[in-house]
């Protein structure tokens, strides 16, 4: 009967490939994937809008404007001094503005004006240039007393103060600073790894749940070993993740090319000035990719195991919450050990499979040795295999049991009365 040219034996790898190929194509060309790609855009937009609104509110709420309530000449001299000093001192100087209510009012009471919460001034300057009087809250006075004194002094002086040019000699780093600066690289790398892993690993779970909902899982389980099914799903989702990361990376690069200055100013973070990792950028990026793959496979295998134990979507949600929280703890552990290289805690973070990729990526930023990475990757690979195997066993044990599994209802269930009647007939006939 089997006259078709069928391969004599479908190996575990080939079986995993059949699953991976289908899953990869199915996910990649689904509408859900488009939304998934756009997913990170929404927090960015919302964050940007919130930041812009927040900044505006803050600018409104935290005024750095000093009201001038001196004589018109003194007011003008102060404003002129501010303009002259601005190129050198910039934002260290407050904005100056005449208080309209004080104009032509020799009895203007700055204290009463401030206490009446009128205007929007950080403080009000009264008195004369020779004897300026700043009225404001304690914090504002502490902040502005010096700059206002400087402005008043400069306004009094007939000539502008001479500012000698200060020469500079920049050093990239120093021996003492190198280690602490690499910590920053390690932290950023861990954070990126964590966010990507959390964002993408959930896809595996939803994929398996969908499979259960479609009831196709039994066909897969009958045709090929369950661990090959799990492996196929994991690697398909990993490939999908790389596509996602590629798209996001390109988008981020495009945005960066268009407005790196604006982005740096807005975020206060300049990625170009991130200290070089100990193993060098090319190797560090390569290790980043490999450790992402491992972190993803480990977490994905864990999620698959959860999916294997769950029978409903609700169960999946309930079971995945502790794992998500545990992943957070694992991340915190790895992040905490960055500043404790060589400690027992760091070793524990490296040995525990789920935190291992995070701890080792940080290590790549801090330490130049490479052999430790080979060892860690082998260990993490074993962890993936163990989780997949365990998940497959659980799946076979817990999921593949029929809804009506168990003994037949007493009396033969719905056939009970007929069974009893026929039974009597048999007995009668014998």
């Amino acid at each position: 009967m089997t006259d078709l040219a069928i391969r004599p034996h479908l190996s575990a790898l080939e079986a995993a490939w059949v699953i991976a190929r289908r899953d990869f194509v199915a996910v990649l060309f689904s509408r859900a994937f488009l939304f998934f790609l756009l997913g990170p855009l929404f927090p960015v937009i919302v964050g940007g809008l919130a930041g812009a609104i927040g900044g505006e509110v803050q600018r409104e709420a935290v005024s750095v404007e000093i009201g001038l309530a001196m004589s018109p000449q003194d007011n003008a001299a102060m404003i002129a001094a501010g303009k002259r000093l601005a190129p050198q001192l910039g934002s260290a100087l407050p904005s100056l503005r005449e208080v309209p209510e004080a104009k032509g009012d020799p009895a203007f009471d700055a204290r009463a004006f401030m206490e009446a919460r009128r205007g929007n001034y950080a403080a009000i300057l009264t008195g004369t240039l020779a004897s300026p009087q700043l009225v404001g809250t304690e914090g504002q006075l502490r902040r502005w007393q010096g700059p206002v004194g400087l402005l008043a002094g400069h306004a009094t002086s007939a000539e502008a103060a001479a500012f000698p040019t200060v020469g500079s000699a920049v050093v990239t780093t120093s021996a003492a600073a190198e280690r602490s600066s690499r910590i920053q690289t390690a932290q950023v790398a861990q954070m990126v790894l964590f966010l990507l892993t959390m964002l993408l690993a959930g896809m595996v779970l939803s994929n398996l749940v969908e499979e259960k909902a479609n009831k196709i899982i039994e066909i897969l389980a009958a045709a090929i070993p369950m661990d090959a099914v799990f492996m196929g799903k994991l690697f398909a989702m990993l490939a999908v993740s790389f596509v996602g990361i590629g798209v996001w990376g390109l988008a981020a690069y495009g945005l960066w090319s268009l407005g790196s200055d604006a982005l740096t100013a807005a975020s206060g973070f300049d990625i170009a000035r991130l200290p070089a990792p100990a193993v060098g950028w090319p190797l560090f990026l390569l290790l980043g990719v490999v450790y992402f793959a491992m972190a993803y496979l480990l977490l994905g295998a864990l999620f698959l195991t959860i999916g294997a134990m769950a029978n409903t979507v609700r169960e999946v949600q309930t079971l995945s919450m502790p794992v998500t929280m545990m992943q957070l703890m694992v991340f915190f552990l790895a992040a905490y050990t960055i500043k404790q290289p060589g400690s027992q805690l760091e070793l524990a973070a490296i040995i525990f499979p789920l935190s291992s990729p995070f701890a080792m990526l940080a290590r790549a930023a801090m330490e130049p040795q490479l052999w430790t990475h080979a060892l860690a990757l082998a260990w993490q690979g074993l962890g993936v295999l163990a989780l997949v195997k365990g998940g497959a066993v659980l799946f076979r044990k817990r999921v593949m049991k029929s809804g009506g599994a168990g003994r037949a209802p007493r009396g033969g269930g719905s056939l009970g009365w007929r069974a009893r009647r026929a039974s009597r007939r048999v007995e009668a006939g014998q």
Partner: protein
Amino acid sequence: MAVSEQSRTGNRGDGFSAIPDDARPLAIEARGLVKSFDGTRAVDGVDILVPEGAIYGILGPNGAGKTTTLRMLLGIIDPDAGVRRVFGHDRPHDIGRLIGYLPEERGLYPAMKCVEAIAFMGALRGLPLRQGRKRALELLESHGLGHVANRTIRQLSKGMAQTVQLLGTLVHQPRLVVLDEPFSGLDAINQGKLETTIRTLADDGVTVIFSTHVIHHAERLCEGVAIIAGGKVPYAGSVEAARDRIPAQVRLETRAREGAWMAALPPETRRNGDFFHFPLPESGIEPLLRQLIEGDAGILSLSIERAGLHDAFVAIAGEAAARQLQADSEGAAA
């Protein structure tokens, strides 16, 4: 995996036979299969022997353990105890390309095109995708579904989707086809088509094993059946032998309402209007006929009806259920 001599033939000589005097090699050999879930014994020592090329039915009420048995036979789950061999192999996945399986809970990827779905199911069994697509188109055409080849599964009716899944089960031309409740959800026309497909497969030498709780399909199709009840197999053997377990029923109509001749009727006789119903006596009908004639019963009509598989099934499943009930009662009392 070496195939043991014992498992090669259907003549086991061990007191248990799938189909008596069958010399064909065994496609499926299961002995003493046991499976428990959460402390409940779903399958309790099942023995099933299916010779190659046979159409074999697994009959049982819902929850009897049919699906669990099939899953064990296919290697989806492992038995807690017992022996399972498919074509002599302990691990069915090792010969997955020889097996086609249609589960009770039908499942296909809704967004997949029919031709791709069938080819994918073939690929799972080792059939190259390109070849699978070609064969899928042929199968769809031959089953009158050529026009839906490029439609997605979600665009199909339920019956069509079930047919597509069946074709996916057969696309790699397996030597053993396992169907779990294949007739459920099908209308009468599609049930008839499925029966034809099963017969065609058997004519081609394919072993077909299917579970059902609809006896008529098994009676029409199967040469051997296993009846499962309460996780046990109270009967496994030929359909004919199962029917022979129930004595034929006699229906008698007489002109005389009463008389001494009534003493000749067996004690199990039931009266229903003008008719008397009773099992055919072991001594045959002739002695009884003689007594009725001599007693002047005035026979108007007499018919002997051989028991059907349905009667046998109900009787056998009922026996098992009664024994189970007794065992449970004794267990509780102890």
